[in-house]
C-alpha cells in the first residue's frame, strides 16, 4: 500500500461513476471547499465525467487566494525593508497586492526567499542572528499547526529575530457563511480532508443539522473525490443531511489532538476578511497575545496599512454559483489572471481563472462545457 497510485486507478473510477449515475435523479449543486480538491478535479478532468445532473461549484479555493489584499500589502511593506529576510511558501510570491507582488519586491532588492517549511525559516533565523527573519504564515487548519510550531519553537529557543505575519483562515465558519447567504445554491459539501486530519470532524454535525446540508469529508485523489461526490449525492437523493467520512484512512473524528492543543496555545480566533468575499466572523486565527513578541504586524508596525478591495469584483457571487464569471463586468477587461481583482481570478484553479483559460478553447459552448463552473 502506497496510499497514492491505488487511489488514482481509472479502472476503479468506473464503478464509482456508475453508482453516481444510478443514484442521481435530478440536478444537485455540490461545493468542494478546498483548492487542492479543485486542482485535482481540473488536473484529472473528473468533472467532465460526472452525469450532467451533478454540478460542482468551486469553493473559496486556497488560503493563498483568499488572503486579503490588505495583508498582502502589509507583507510587501515588510519584505521591502532593509535588513529583513522575508520567507514565504512559493504560492504567495505571485499573488498581487495593490501595485506589486513579492517577485517585484525581490527585483527591487528585497530579500525574499521561498521555503518549503516554516522550520526552514526558523533555521534561517538561527543562522542570521543579525537579520530580522519574517515568515508569511498563511493557510487553513492544515498549515496552521506547522506554523504554530515554528512560533512556539522560536519563543522556546529565544530566537528573537523571528516573527510571523499571520493570516490563517478556518473552514467551518466559511461553510457557515456560504450557507447563510439567502441566495445560496449549494446543496452539499465536500469537506477538506486534510483540514479534518488535523481538526477532526466534530465541528461539522451542528453545521449539517442547522443548514440541513450533507457534509462529506473528502480526500484529494481522483477516486477519493468521486467517492465524496457519490456519498453526497446519495444523501441528497435520500433527503438526508449528515456528516460522513469518505477519507477514513487519514481522518479520525478527534483529528490530531497534539496539533489542536498547539493551535489553542499559539493562536486565537478572530474575524477575518477573505479576498473578494469580505469579513467572515470568527473565520481566522491571529497570534495570541502571549506570542505578541513574534507578531510581525506589531514588530513592523504595519497595522496602519488599510487597503479596500476593488468594488468591481463580484467573486463572492461567483463563489456561490450565483454568477458565471463572464457575466461579471470586470471579467477579461480589468480583471485577468495577470491583473486579478479577487480570489477566483488569483488562483489558477479559481472559477474565473479557469473560465478565462478555457474561453480560449473557442466557442462559448466549449467554454461552457469545459469550464468547471459548469
Amino acid at each position, binding site marked *: 500500500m502506497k496510499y497514492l497510485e491505488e487511489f488514482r486507478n481509472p479502472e476503479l473510477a468506473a464503478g464509482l461513476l456508475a453508482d453516481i449515475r444510478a443514484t442521481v435523479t435530478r440536478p444537485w449543486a455540490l461545493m468542494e471547499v478546498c483548492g487542492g480538491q479543485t486542482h485535482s478535479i481540473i*488536473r484529472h478532468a473528473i468533472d467532465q465525467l460526472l452525469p450532467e445532473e451533478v454540478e460542482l461549484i468551486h469553493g473559496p479555493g486556497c488560503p493563498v487566494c483568499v488572503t486579503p489584499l490588505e495583508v498582502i500589502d502589509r507583507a510587501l511593506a515588510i519584505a521591502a525593508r532593509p535588513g529583513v529576510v522575508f520567507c514565504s511558501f512559493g*504560492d504567495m510570491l505571485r499573488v498581487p497586492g495593490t501595485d506589486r507582488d513579492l517577485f*517585484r519586491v525581490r527585483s527591487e532588492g528585497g530579500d525574499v526567499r521561498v521555503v518549503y517549511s516554516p522550520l526552514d525559516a526558523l533555521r534561517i533565523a538561527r543562522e542570521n542572528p543579525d537579520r530580522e527573519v519574517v515568515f508569511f504564515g498563511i493557510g487553513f487548519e492544515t498549515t496552521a499547526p506547522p506554523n504554530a510550531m515554528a512560533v512556539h519553537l522560536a519563543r522556546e529557543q529565544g530566537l528573537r529575530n523571528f516573527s510571523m505575519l499571520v493570516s490563517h483562515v478556518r473552514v467551518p465558519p466559511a461553510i457557515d457563511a456560504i450557507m447563510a447567504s439567502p441566495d445560496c445554491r449549494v446543496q452539499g459539501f465536500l469537506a477538506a480532508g486534510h483540514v479534518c486530519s488535523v481538526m477532526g470532524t466534530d465541528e461539522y454535525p451542528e453545521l449539517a443539522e442547522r443548514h440541513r446540508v450533507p457534509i462529506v469529508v473528502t480526500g484529494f485523489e481522483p477516486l477519493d473525490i468521486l467517492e465524496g461526490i457519490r456519498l453526497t449525492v446519495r444523501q441528497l437523493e435520500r433527503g438526508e443531511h449528515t456528516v460522513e467520512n469518505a477519507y477514513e484512512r487519514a481522518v479520525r473524528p478527534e483529528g490530531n489532538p497534539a496539533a489542536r492543543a498547539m493551535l489553542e496555545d499559539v493562536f486565537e480566533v478572530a474575524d477575518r476578511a477573505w479576498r473578494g468575499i469580505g469579513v467572515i466572523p470568527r473565520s481566522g486565527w491571529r497570534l495570541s497575545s502571549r506570542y505578541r513578541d513574534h507578531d510581525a504586524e506589531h514588530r513592523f508596525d504595519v497595522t496602519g496599512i488599510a487597503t479596500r478591495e476593488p468594488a468591481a469584483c463580484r467573486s463572492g457571487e461567483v463563489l456561490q454559483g450565483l454568477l458565471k464569471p463572464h457575466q461579471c463586468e470586470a471579467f477579461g477587461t480589468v480583471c*485577468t489572471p495577470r491583473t486579478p481583482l479577487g480570489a477566483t481570478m488569483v488562483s489558477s484553479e479559481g472559477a474565473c481563472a479557469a473560465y478565462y483559460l478555457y474561453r480560449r478553447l473557442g466557442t462559448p459552448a466549449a467554454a461552457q462545457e469545459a469550464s468547471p463552473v459548469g
Partner: protein
Amino acid sequence: MADTETLTPAPDFSGWSCPLPLRDHPRVVMGHGGGGALSAELVEHVFAPAFGGPLLAGLADSAVLELGGARLAFSTDSYVVRPLFFPGGSIGDLAVNGTVNDLAMSGARAAYLSCGFILEEGVETAVVDRVARALGAAARAAGVEVATGDTKVVEAGRGDGIYLNTAGIGLVAPGVDIRPQRAAPGDVVILSGPIGLHGVAIMSVREGLEFGVEVRSDCAALGGLVDAMLAVTPDLHVLRDPTRGGLAAALNEIATAAGVGVRLTERAVPVPEAVANACALLGLDPLYVANEGKLVAFVPRREAEAVLAAMRAHPLGAEAVVIGECVEDHLGMVVARTGFGGTRVVDLPMGEQLPRIC
C-alpha cells in the same frame, strides 16, 4: 547593448497589443528568464523590435542562415545554473549540450563552439578547472570543437562563482527545414524519453529545498539522435528540446508559432516514479519541469513509424514514444486528455516553477 540604444528609442509601452506584463515589471524579475510567458514577452517586445532582423523574428532556438553558399545554424545560450555541480552533470556539460542541442533542433550537427567564462572574484581555480574539464569532455563526446573563448572576472558578490556562455555553428543539410512554424495538422508528436529528470535533479540539491532522490540529470547532446532521425527522412517538421518550462512550454511555443492545436495523451508521457513523487511533494506538474537531454518531434504521419523506430534504436531515444498529435482544433493551444478520460488545457507557464502548498 550600448549601440542598440543609439539606434532606437526606448520601447514604446503604450502601443502593445499584449496586455501589461512589462508595464507590470519596471524591473526584471526571475520569471523573465524562466522560459515561460514572461521570457517570450521580453523577446517579443524588447529584443525583437530593437534588433529588427528577420532571422530573430523566427524566435527559434537557433537561426538558420545562408553564408557563402552554405546553410548554417547559429545559436547562443548562457548558463547560470546553481549549484555548479549536480547529480548527473555540471554547468560545463550544460554549456556544451545546451548549445549543441539548440543547433540540433534546426537539424544541424554542431561543428564549432565559442565559450565565454564569467568568473566571480574568489572562486577557487580548482573549481574552474573542474568545470573546464567537464566542458572539454562534453565537447569531445558531442563531436564539437571549442574554437574560441573569452574570460572576464567580476567582483566578489557580483556572480555565482561561474557563469558560462557558449555560441555554436553547424551545417544544415540541403532539404532540411526544421522550425516551429512547420507543425501541421496531422503531424504525430514524438517524445524521446522520460521527462523531468534534470529539473528534479537540480531542485534536489538547491539550497533550502534539499531532498534525497535517486535521479540524475538527463543532460546529453542530441546531435547523434537527430542524425539518426534525419537518416529516415529529411522532412521532420519541428524539433524542440523541452528545457526551461518543460514539455508544456515547448508544445505551447510550437502551437503558437504554427497556429495549430496540439493534443496530448497525458498517460502516454513517461514520468519516472521518483520525478512524479518529487513533483507531488513540491506541488509541481512534471509537464513544466526542465529536461536537458530530451527532444520532442513533430513528424508527418506517414514517416512517424519509421522515425520512432530509428529513435528507439539510438541510446538517447530508447524510450521514445508517441505522445500526441497536431490538430486543427483549439489553435494555438495544447489540450491534454487525462488518464481519466477528460480534457484539460495545458497552458504556457508564467515564469519560474515554485514549490506550492495548495
